[in-house]
């Protein structure tokens, strides 16, 4: 075997290479955040948040409709995805151990890996085709399906971390199982589950592919959740592949707002975890 100095040297070199790998990964992150901030900050102004887009050729205008659209679609996604996911997760953690629960876990894991554009096709076929209308509702359902597996699995894992003594204590006091689960087990795990939900929301907030043929897009205000609705990600896509310089500027601004929104959810999730940790 090689001498000790040689081995020590190899150790140093590999450590160096690993540090390089970490740095290499951080360069694109830095570059993306730098350019989004630099290009976006110049284009974000009051009009951006309050006005609709101007016709091609005129400068100015904003994306108020897309911001509202994104929030609407996210809201619908949460209304559908979060309760479904949490209740499904409760089943896995509290009544699990059955054959059925194995199938559910397996399906959730596989569903996580299904490309989001495929979910877009699915929702197009089951909602857009029958209603003959692109809609915020369809977009919301698509995003709900995307967040569902994350919420189910997080709830499942976190509920299983709750010590059995708490469950037994509640049951010994004569509380029915459903009350014990809702008021004791679920409450104990609530901050963690909230974190999981936040991360799931952050993940789907930037999804574009499934919205292309569900919520579609709109040049102005949407007529309600039953009609085509603009969203920030789709707007960024359409504007950035267009040939107009002013639209590119707007795309950067929209990217800045979107990244800020996503980071906000991420940070919120982290803060929730931090609050919880001293108590553990």
């Amino acid at each position, binding site marked *: 075997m090689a001498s000790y100095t040689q*081995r*020590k040297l190899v150790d140093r070199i*590999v*450590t160096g290479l*690993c*540090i390089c*790998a*970490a740095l*290499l*990964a*951080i360069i*694109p*992150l830095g*570059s*993306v*955040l730098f350019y*989004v901030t630099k*290009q976006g900050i110049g284009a974000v102004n009051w009009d951006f948040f309050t006005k609709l887009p101007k016709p091609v050729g005129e400068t100015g205008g904003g994306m108020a409709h897309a911001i509202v659209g994104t929030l609407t679609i996210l809201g619908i996604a949460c209304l559908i995805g979060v309760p479904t996911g949490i*209740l*499904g997760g*409760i*089943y896995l953690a*509290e*009544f699990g151990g059955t054959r*059925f629960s194995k199938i*559910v876990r397996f*399906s959730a894991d*596989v*569903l996580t*890996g*299904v*490309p*989001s*554009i*495929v979910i*877009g*096709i*699915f929702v*197009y*076929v089951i909602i857009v085709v029958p209603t003959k209308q692109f809609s915020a509702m369809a977009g919301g359902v698509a995003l709900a399906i995307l967040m*569902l*597996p994350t919420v*189910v699995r997080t709830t499942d894992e976190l509920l299983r*971390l709750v010590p059995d003594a708490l469950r037994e204590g509640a049951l010994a006091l004569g509380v*029915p*199982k*459903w*009350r014990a689960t809702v008021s004791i087990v679920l409450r104990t795990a609530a901050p963690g589950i909230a974190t999981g939900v936040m991360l799931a929301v952050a993940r789907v907030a*930037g999804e*574009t*592919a499934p919205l*292309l*043929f569900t919520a579609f897009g709109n040049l102005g205000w949407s007529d309600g959740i039953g009609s085509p609705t603009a969203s920030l990600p789709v707007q*960024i*896509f359409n504007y*950035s592949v267009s040939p107009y310089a002013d639209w*590119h500027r707007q*795309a950067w601004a929209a*990217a800045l707002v*979107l990244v800020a929104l996503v980071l906000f959810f991420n940070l919120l999730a982290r803060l929730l975890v931090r609050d919880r940790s001293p108590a553990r």
Partner: protein
Amino acid sequence: MKDAAASELPTDKELVPASTKVARATRKTNRDVNAGDRIFRGVTTFFAGLVVVTLAAVAIQLVMTAWPSLSKFGFHFLYTRDWNPVEDEFGALPFLYGTVVSSTLALCIAVPIALGIAIFLTELAPPWMRSPVSFLVELLAAVPSVVYGLWGIFVLAPWLRDTVEPGISKVLGFIPMFRVPESGSTGLGMFTAGLILSIMILPTISSIAREVLKATPLPLREGALALGSTRWEVVRYVILPYARSGIVGAIILGLGRALGETMAVTMVIGNSPNISASLFAPSYTMASIIANEFTEATGKIHLAALAEIGLLLFVVTFILNVLARLLVWRVAAGRRYKTAGGRT
């Protein structure tokens, strides 16, 4: 709580035969409690079942929508290259090629870096560095795909076109793969797509690889250290062999993400259904063709052909996910067993 007093309610009396008077109190209490529990169990089961139903419905709807194309083209679909909505002739080969090559390229770039990061974060980094570095790497996963695309169009592609591609071409240009096409490069092409994909799958691979590396039992590490190994030797001879199958699983999950990634790729790959020897030429992927043409597909066969591409993506990612989870689970299961009851 329901107790004996509650059992005196007249409505309840009718439900219980008079002959079972003694057993009544307890049994009825149980039944009342169980009613709530039964509903609760039923409701949660229903919602858990929705996950399974959704997955099954996705598969069924895709097959149904793709059926006209499936039955018309059969296996020809996979190896012919016409894509002609006017004459309803569809072959997906250029898109399959684009997806396979761009994903392979992404893996070639991302795997060494991701493993480097995972090893660094679990084994080599000083403790104070771990949390900030892993936070930054996770942040890579948080940036939306469409933002990577925007950055790719306006920052990465011009840089690659003006600096990197001529450089590579000058040195390795004798290999057709690295030759800039005669028509010149726009910076939008297979190479740019592969690079952007590699950035996007990096956090996936590195975070799962980290989980797997962490699962190596402590006594194994301690044993190797006690024998005088350097830290790298511990990684090389103890941890990597132990975690090998899990790492393969992590790479497969990364591949699954790369195959289905849509927006960033669509924005930087150039969207031209050619099969070109050069990596710097524009190409097209399966996900991109769906994103670009689905809303405009008016013909039944055209829509079906796009759905069939979607179905292919679904089937491939399904298989990859099952495979990867089996591999990762095999390594991580040992850990779960070890730390059961302990803090994780």
